[in-house]
């Protein structure tokens, strides 16, 4: 069966204004709205569109995270994923651990395509897709803004790079990571939320997959960023230019 595996992560919603705990031990997440990482929603949307075009038979969503992450898996199922795999783990999950867990799922499910977000908007690491591709010894096409599946063996991917747009051809299976403009994820309708409750959700553990939850980077200290001084209002273009000249900028 032609399968696509989509990785998702539970993150603080992108609209939440983050606060650092006064003791520097982390950011405040109690009572804060949590969501599917926006780039991962784009990954899922792309997988669903490929399936709807007849390019895949099944879309599986997978995550590595705490028990609460089941809420995000249910959202993904409501969006249209066929089933969900939850590798339950608490505490810090480094990209290498997430990728090792995903690789175990890849070996089990044999997808022809793995689609992930290019980065999670909480830790902004931007690593898991590349690390998975490395461990799997398969192609990676990061920052995708266009994805075409060409037959059974290759995909053509347009990537958003610093210079502009780059096009690569990769053999399948491959890992794709999504950029913002790949697609616009669909809204979930109420009946789909009801239907999602009946879809299969399998819970696994890192230990059962044979993956050690190693932490190689200790999170030593969290701080708020330095604040910029609030500036002044100018009344018109002439005053703006005068101020910039006074400051030696023009």
């Amino acid at each position: 069966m032609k399968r696509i595996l989509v990785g998702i992560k539970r993150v603080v919603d992108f609209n939440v204004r983050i606060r650092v705990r006064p003791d520097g031990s982390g950011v405040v997440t109690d009572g804060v709205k949590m969501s599917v990482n926006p780039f991962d929603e784009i990954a899922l949307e792309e997988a669903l569109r490929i399936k709807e075009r007849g390019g895949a038979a099944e879309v599986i969503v997978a995550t590595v995270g705490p028990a609460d992450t089941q809420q995000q898996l249910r959202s993904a199922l409501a969006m249209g994923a066929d089933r969900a795999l939850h590798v339950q783990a608490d505490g810090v999950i480094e990209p290498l651990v997430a990728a090792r867990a995903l690789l175990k799922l890849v070996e089990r499910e044999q997808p022809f395509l793995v689609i992930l977000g290019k980065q999670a908007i909480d830790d902004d690491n931007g690593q898991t897709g590349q690390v998975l591709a490395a461990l799997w010894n398969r192609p990676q096409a990061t920052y995708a803004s266009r994805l075409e599946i060409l037959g059974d063996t290759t995909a053509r991917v347009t990537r958003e790079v610093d210079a502009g747009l780059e096009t690569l051809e990769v053999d399948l299976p491959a890992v794709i990571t999504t950029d913002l403009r790949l697609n616009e994820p669909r809204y979930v309708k109420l009946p789909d939320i009801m239907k999602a409750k009946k879809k299969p959700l399998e819970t696994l553990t890192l230990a059962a997959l044979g993956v050690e939850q190693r932490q190689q980077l200790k999170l030593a200290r969290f701080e708020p960023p330095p604040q910029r001084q609030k500036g002044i209002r100018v009344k018109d273009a002439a005053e703006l230019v005068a101020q910039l000249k006074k400051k030696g900028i023009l």
Partner: protein
Amino acid sequence: MPRVLIVAEHDGGRLNVSTARCVSCARALNDAELTIAVCAADPGAVAAQAAQLAGVTRVLAVANPANTHALAAVLAPQIVALAGPFTHVLGPSTTFGKDLMARVAGLLGAPQVSDIMGIESPSRFRRPIYAGNAILTVEAEAGVKVVGTVRMASFEAAGGGGSAPIEKVALSVELPAHTRFISVSAAKTDRPDLLTAARVVSGGRALGSAEGFKILYSLADKLGAAVGASRAAVDAGYAPNEMQVGQTGKIIAPELYVAVGISGAIQHLTGIKDARTIVAINKDGEAPIFEVADFGLVGDLFQIIPELEKLVG
């Protein structure tokens, strides 16, 4: 003594300034020995430029026709083959470096510190998280090799004047053929590069159209500035993707940043908070961009920008 391997970014003929910024970052490690790896089809010219960067100990030049285009899957095994004796392997936090270094980290089984903005010790690094709304200090486990990407806005480019020896290195590693370069399309421009420009004029959705953006190009040319855009403007098709400034676009630190018709979503502010001076021009006086602007001007941009152009011309 830290031994740092820096992966050079280049276009086959010219060394990207991102490499000089990585050198500055690595020099924050006291007494570090700095080696730059240049993997190219014909690395001669780029290696010569790398050898001139101040503080560089030596340059390794790896020639292979497979390196004609920078493909992470092809470059990563070569970097891994070179990485053995090094304590740190750094690349720039550009799309080139972000794509490549994490693959290198994966092959090495090493931790990666993304977007290094400061180095406190050979094992302690500062980096932004949550779109720059928090700064995290991470400490690497003793003895592990650390892979890192260097946040461009946090480090000045290292100067020249060096004359490091260049060693040609022949690597016998198997390179994959599963990833092939097809093309790259980049708008040709005479304007400064957005990532390194001293002045940047950026536009948001309020410009209304690609046509509307023309008044910004005109002002930018008077100022000798690069032109950027908010995500909203890029999504709307007013500007190409390579102009996007913000958390998921380019993170820049110009002397002067002029935000025109940009409301200032936190994801955008992440990309500009290291700018020396921020000017905001917006018709909505309540827009969040004014909270970070050194100079704010409330009004109609289509009236203000042409006036501004005349005044600076």
